[in-house]
């Protein structure tokens, strides 16, 4: 059990103990880690932090609504081959040079252990996760064009994020380790802010957090402000040289926290009713 480094978060990514444990079990068992949580709680950043924390290269695969599972493995460029056969540019008998590995293919053929981020898996078609089952299970795939089978020398650390737009199939879930990133509480949020804005004065930080959690409690917001937006907001406050006396009376740069027009009205009303 001493053959790998344990993940404990990184200098600029504060992870809760539960999250660290989930990451470590996924790494140790070679199972994909499925991460869900509100937008802006750092699901995607987690993969970056794992790569940095465990010192492995990161390969990202951003899933779109049109993404197919095979695209992640490899793409065979038949047109280029056809073209080359006409102009004798390259030896067209060697099919391998017309095969470009996708992100998953690269992770499975990499010489060292990699972190593979499959971002927003729920954006793709309903069947997409099912099409990945075998590859993620065996960490191997077959290329019919060349007759080769590639098998990962070391199972990549797969981090899969989902925004809950679609339910994922049970067979897929069964193979994953799951973690839900809960919204950080006050204490954890303080640590997160400290990491991103070490120069922020303590009293201003307290004030910012109070206003932020107050905003999150405003009922009926279409999108609640999240961690990443709080960090942006504080950056804006610092850049604008706002001090706590201002913050007591108004909320400058509200646009970094609130992204809907209707929300803006509600938020302003709530802010003024409190002042």
């Amino acid at each position, binding site marked *: *059990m001493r053959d790998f480094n344990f993940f404990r978060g990184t200098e600029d990514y504060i992870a809760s*103990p*539960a999250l660290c*444990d*989930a990451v*470590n*079990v*996924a790494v*140790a*068992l070679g*199972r994909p880690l*499925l991460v*869900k949580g509100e937008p802006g709680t750092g699901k995607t950043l987690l993969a970056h932090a794992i790569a940095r924390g465990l010192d492995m290269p990161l390969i990202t695969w951003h899933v779109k*609504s*049109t993404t197919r599972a095979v695209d992640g493995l490899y793409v065979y460029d*038949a*047109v280029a081959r*056809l*073209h080359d056969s*006409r102009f004798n540019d390259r030896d067209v008998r060697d099919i391998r040079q017309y095969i470009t590995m996708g992100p998953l293919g690269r992770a499975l053929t990499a010489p060292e252990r990699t972190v593979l981020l499959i971002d927003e898996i729920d954006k793709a*078609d*309903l069947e997409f996760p099912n099409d990945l089952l075998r590859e993620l299970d065996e960490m191997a795939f077959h290329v019919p064009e060349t007759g080769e089978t590639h098998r990962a020398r070391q199972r990549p650390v797969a981090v899969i994020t989902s925004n809950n*737009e*679609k*339910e*994922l*199939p*049970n067979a897929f*879930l*069964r193979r*994953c*380790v*799951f*973690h*839900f990133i*809960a919204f950080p509480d006050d204490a954890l949020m303080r640590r997160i802010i400290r990491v991103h804005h070490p120069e922020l004065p303590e009293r201003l930080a307290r004030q910012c957090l109070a206003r932020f959690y107050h905003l999150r409690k405003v009922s009926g917001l279409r999108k609640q402000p999240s961690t990443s937006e709080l960090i942006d907001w504080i950056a804006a406050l610092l850049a604008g040289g706002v001090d706590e006396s201002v913050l007591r009376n108004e909320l400058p740069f509200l646009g970094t926290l609130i992204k809907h027009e209707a929300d803006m009205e509600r938020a302003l009303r709530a802010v003024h009713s409190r002042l």
Partner: protein
Amino acid sequence: MFTGFFYEMRGRGIPVTPTEWLTLMRALSLGLAFSDLVRFYHLARAVCVKSETLYDAFDQAWLAVFQGVEAPVEIQEAVWKWLKNPVLPGPVAPDDLRLLKAMDLERLRREFQQRLASQTERHDGGSHWIGTGGTSPFGHGGYRPGGLRVGGHAGGGMAAQIAARRAFANYRSDRVLDTRQIGVALKKLRRFAREGNRSEVDMDGTIQATARQGGEITVVERPERTSNLKVFLLMDAGGSMTSYATRVGRLFSAASRASHFKDFKAFYFHNCVYEYVFRDISRWDAVGVEELLRSMDSSYRLILVGDACMAPTELMARWGAIYYHHRNERTGLDWLELLGEHFERSVWLNPMPLRFWAHPTVERIANMFPMFELTLDGLEQAIQLLGGRRVEPTQIPQHSGVGHGPRGPRYP
């Protein structure tokens, strides 16, 4: 190991499978829990629970199984000093181990509290006081059967306390949303077609064209294959629909998330459709039906969802709408006919169980729209019909004997 916990989880609706359980056992045998209850709690949750809506059920299952492990005693600073730099006990022979009498947890705790109250100094190697290297049931680590461990990192009580906080109660959804099943059913509604920009290489076409040109490479492109199906969903949000709200909600969320519709419009009505339908469930944001129909061609598939149960006047009479001040000039029946004629294919999904369908307005509406139960079976049939296959609409049972009063007269 802990199979009781496995069944406790299953009993609380967490769909843990033996595969996941074995995964957890493998993780434990790899030493990933470090004999630490908090770690074990995180580990078990990460491996066995796949949705935040089940976190609360997991916490409860955990409490039910592991709550006895809790050690809520406040340990004073002095006691910790007695236990510092422990004298390690020698290995205990199995025979001796058996001599040490195991106590039940209640008694163990009582005794511990008593000794904690009367002990005044450090003890190493004894058999009674709280100390190190001895055989008393209270001490720092060790093999004592039925003993109480004081110290070590984190402490046994923590995980039970985390679970007891039940921080995820808000995420709980007792109705397990099986929108996926509905989503998979709706997927059969796809009608693929190639329309729009030519953005994809047609490999067969290219080879054929190239061959026809005697080897001169001719690349043929074609538009991507996309679904061009358009869906118009009209849902009853009336009072009698409240009991079916979950199922209708599931249908709606599955349909609105389905990415394979070219267009998806959803509106609400109350009991019956009149001149307006509504964008929101609270029926504030009204849209004229005629105006709406002008913006939709007949290729939209119309899916009406409702129990079709109303007072016959609501359906057949001028000014029959349920709101007293709503003076509908045309009857609900007229409006429904208008809808039925406008669209090439339409179905009515009824969440009410089939045995209640012997009701005058249900029968009348079932004559206009092929009606199916809002179950997975009914939905599949409805979708086949919308897809252009021949499907017999559900037959209404004639002798239901359910208390909807005498059957009303048939209206023209």
